[in-house]
């Protein structure tokens, strides 16, 4: 076959087959062990928030909008409230809403830390929202969220 025929054939195939196939696959491609666990996500959120009223200020969550490598997505969290010996961040959690194990990690700080900032790298099984929740020493709970689009097929964990 001449190259140009091959290329033309490929383009025709691409428009005819690949696009619908990819769409159909994106729904069914997640193996059962990687299925999201909404019950655990809700529980982790509720356990952390408790009876506090979550505030959407004072916590900065930085995650790329498009994650080109879903097996290592950089996440950076920091409390932007002015901290002192009396007011500090006690703990901070990061949740990946659609991951099989939504509670990605927990950071703990002490009065001695003097700041509340941390960064790590996540595995994301699919396109989803990443949440961060921080508990301050005065009982306030701060929340932040960011949607992340995962390139390719997501991480196999």
């Amino acid at each position, binding site marked *: 076959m001449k190259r140009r025929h091959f290329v033309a054939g490929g383009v025709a195939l691409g428009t005819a087959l690949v696009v619908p196939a990819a769409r159909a696959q994106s729904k069914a491609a997640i193996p059962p062990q990687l299925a999201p666990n909404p019950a655990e996500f809700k529980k982790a959120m509720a356990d952390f928030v408790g009876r506090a009223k979550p505030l959407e200020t004072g916590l900065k969550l930085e995650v790329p909008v498009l994650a080109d490598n879903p097996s290592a997505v950089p996440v950076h969290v920091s409390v932007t409230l002015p901290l002192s010996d009396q007011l500090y961040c006690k703990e901070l959690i990061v949740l990946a809403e659609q991951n099989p194990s939504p509670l990605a990690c927990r*950071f703990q700080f*002490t009065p001695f830390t003097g700041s509340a900032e*941390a960064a*790590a790298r996540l595995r994301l099984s699919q396109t989803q929202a990443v949440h961060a929740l921080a508990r301050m020493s005065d009982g306030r709970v701060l929340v932040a969220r960011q949607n992340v689009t995962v390139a390719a097929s997501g991480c196999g964990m």
Partner: protein
Amino acid sequence: MSVKPPRVWVSNAKPARGEIVRVRAQIEHAMESGLRVDGDGKPRPRNIVRRFEARLGANLIFVWEPGISIAQNPYIEFTFAAREGGELVMQWADEKDVTLEARKTLTLA
């Protein structure tokens, strides 16, 4: 856990009193989630780094408890205020209780 020593970067080993010091650290670890299967379809046993802690002298300054959603070769970055000089001791422990340790000496400028 790997035998390679942790890689640690500290923004300033001679900070002024109260200066915010940034630390970046990474170890080699597969962070096996327990969800993967080997070639025969058998699940690989779960073993992740379950705890990282950093102390400055006698004071605990930072704790990290990763879950299975943390990437392999776990990377951690944190900051703290240098209130005193001393040794910054970082410890990792995985679920098989293998531990790794790294130390950096901080002296106040």
